[in-house]
């Protein structure tokens, strides 16, 4: 299968008053054609930084210091900013965000915000653009799009706004759409609608989706492949079935166990002790070692390499093939 998006060894730094911090380090993954890849992690894991870095939307104090981002054969980090703006963003890769209320401009109509993507990147008449906007609104399940196109974001419900965002992301038929926590702000029943919609549209528009979320349940429902991030690094990578059924990294295992389930759990939930480290308080060695149940001396001093186990990649000393271990 062809990779639409390839990220190699991506490293991002932030300069702050307190010094320079590495937000993500050595992040590598591939996104296949018409696949959905989920990046899952807790706060401070670097999942959002990763997606913003791909879009070159990092805050002013953030900078990609190493790595390569290849979109359909083009090395994005080597393109001049005007090229990125003109040819890539909105056109070949688009992004939707968590809060559809704040992510839409309050004083422009829905139609205006959709058609401007077309005007920016294509030579298209007003009439055609409007027709396309109505089409795409219909595709994302918005009733009477001819009317909606003249409305402002505040006149729509949360679910409808997120549909408008998706319409905006898809109208230019990009190769990749990044969805950053697109259902986190929505109610359960609306979340289900949106996830279902994304899955359908992915096929219709022949788009690949990079789905960023903190919610493993959503991942189970939408992803083909999963990346688990912790403290700025990828700790585990694999197909969604493998990761959910045979999680390797102690962190992934902890996360899956810590979730209460619908089928009813009693007594204490298994927990991961301690707190998620902030960017400035990441421990040396393996970044998870101070919360890990399987910690040993090596973890405290030496940062683990990524090891291939079955079909998964795991960043953990436990899976170092160089070490023959008696039990596992």
């Amino acid at each position: 299968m062809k990779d639409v998006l390839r990220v190699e060894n991506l490293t991002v730094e932030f300069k702050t008053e307190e010094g320079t911090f590495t937000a993500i380090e050595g992040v590598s993954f591939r996104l296949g054609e018409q696949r959905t890849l989920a990046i899952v992690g807790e706060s401070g894991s670097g999942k959002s930084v990763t997606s913003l870095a791909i879009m070159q939307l990092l805050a002013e104090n953030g900078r990609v210091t190493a790595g390569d981002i290849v979109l359909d054969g083009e090395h994005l980090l080597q393109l001049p900013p005007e090229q990125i703006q003109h040819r890539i963003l909105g056109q070949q890769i688009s992004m939707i965000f968590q809060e559809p209320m704040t992510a839409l401009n309050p004083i422009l109509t829905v139609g205006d915000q959709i058609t401007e993507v077309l005007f920016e990147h294509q030579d298209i008449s007003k009439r055609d653009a409007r027709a396309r906007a109505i089409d795409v609104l219909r595709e994302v399940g918005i009733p009477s799009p001819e009317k909606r196109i003249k409305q402002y974001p505040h006149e729509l419900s949360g679910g409808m706004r997120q549909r408008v965002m998706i319409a905006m992301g898809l109208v230019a038929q990009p190769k990749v759409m990044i969805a950053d926590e697109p259902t986190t702000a929505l109610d359960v029943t609306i979340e289900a609608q949106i996830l279902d919609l994304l899955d359908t549209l992915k096929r219709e528009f022949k788009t690949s989706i990079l789905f960023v979320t903190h919610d493993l349940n959503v991942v189970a429902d939408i992803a083909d492949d999963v990346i688990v991030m912790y403290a700025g690094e990828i700790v585990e990578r694999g197909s969604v079935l493998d990761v959910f059924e045979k999680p390797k990294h102690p962190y992934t295992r902890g996360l899956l166990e810590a979730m209460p389930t619908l089928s009813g759990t009693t007594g204490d939930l298994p927990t991961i002790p301690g707190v998620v480290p902030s960017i400035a308080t990441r421990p040396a060695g393996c970044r998870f070692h101070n919360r890990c149940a399987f910690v040993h001396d090596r973890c405290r001093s030496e940062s683990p390499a990524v090891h291939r186990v079955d079909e998964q990649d795991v960043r953990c000393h436990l899976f170092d093939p160089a070490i023959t271990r008696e039990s596992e």
Partner: protein
Amino acid sequence: MARYILKRLIQSIPVVFGITVLSFAIMKFAPGDPLANFIDPTISMEDIEASRAALGLNDPWYVQYAGWLSEVARGNLGYTYAGNHSIRALIAQRFPNTIILTLSAFVLSFAVGVPIGVMGAIRKNTRTDYGLTVFSLVGVSIPSFFFGLLVIYLFSILLGVFPSGGMVNMRARYTGFARTLDIAHHLILPAIVLSLSNIATVSRFTRSNMVDVLKEDYIRTARAKGLRRKAIIYKHAFRNALIPVITIFGLSIPFLFSGAYITESIFNWPGMGSLGIQAIQDREYGIVMALNLITASLVLLGNLTADVLYAVADPRIRH
């Protein structure tokens, strides 16, 4: 929308009432009797009493207030103590001149202030931005009379390019278009002096709004859509940043009228400000009261207009 305007109108009724009460109260608290100036040692106490009674000065305050209010409602602003001139006529004579000056300053404030603010925001934390920030701070810090004197010293005394005062060239007696040009020539310095601190206020406000707007999520969305920088700044950011600037429209009006007092007196501009200063020195309370009332009403009207504009500009309120 109509309901919104109606609501705002009704809300301003108690404010209008308060304005008239306060105007009236200020004058009633005044010590000193305007008639004191006319006391002729040769006339009798009875004559003084008679003229006091004729002027209504012996009535209780609420009778005076009611009488005054009903006159004002009919458009009669009373007469001066000295000379019995119609106050309405006096003010009507000065009113257009003040409007010319304040309106020019108003236009100047926004025409200059908004672009400066936008420039500062999009070049945030660069040398340009620091320069503009310091300029704005100097603008709000410099006393307007000092700035006025400096400007006169520089442009009329040293360079001789602009007249130092007045509204028309008394000797030339221009007519028609030449007269308009002459007024414009006289207008430039006072308009600059009057607008400077307002320019600074507008630019500071615009800058901080624009900086906030540029941090909004929808700006990130616009960038993610691959829009060019110009479209992001002007279509998405600027229009949102401008909406709160409308509130400054309303606030500018009392500010400029205040400034007109000083500017008019420095430049001998024949407007309401210089009339007011003269009236205070002459204890012509009727004039002062009328001026207070007129300007306060203009301010109220300005605020109302600003609110309506706000609603027009912001679809969230419009609906």
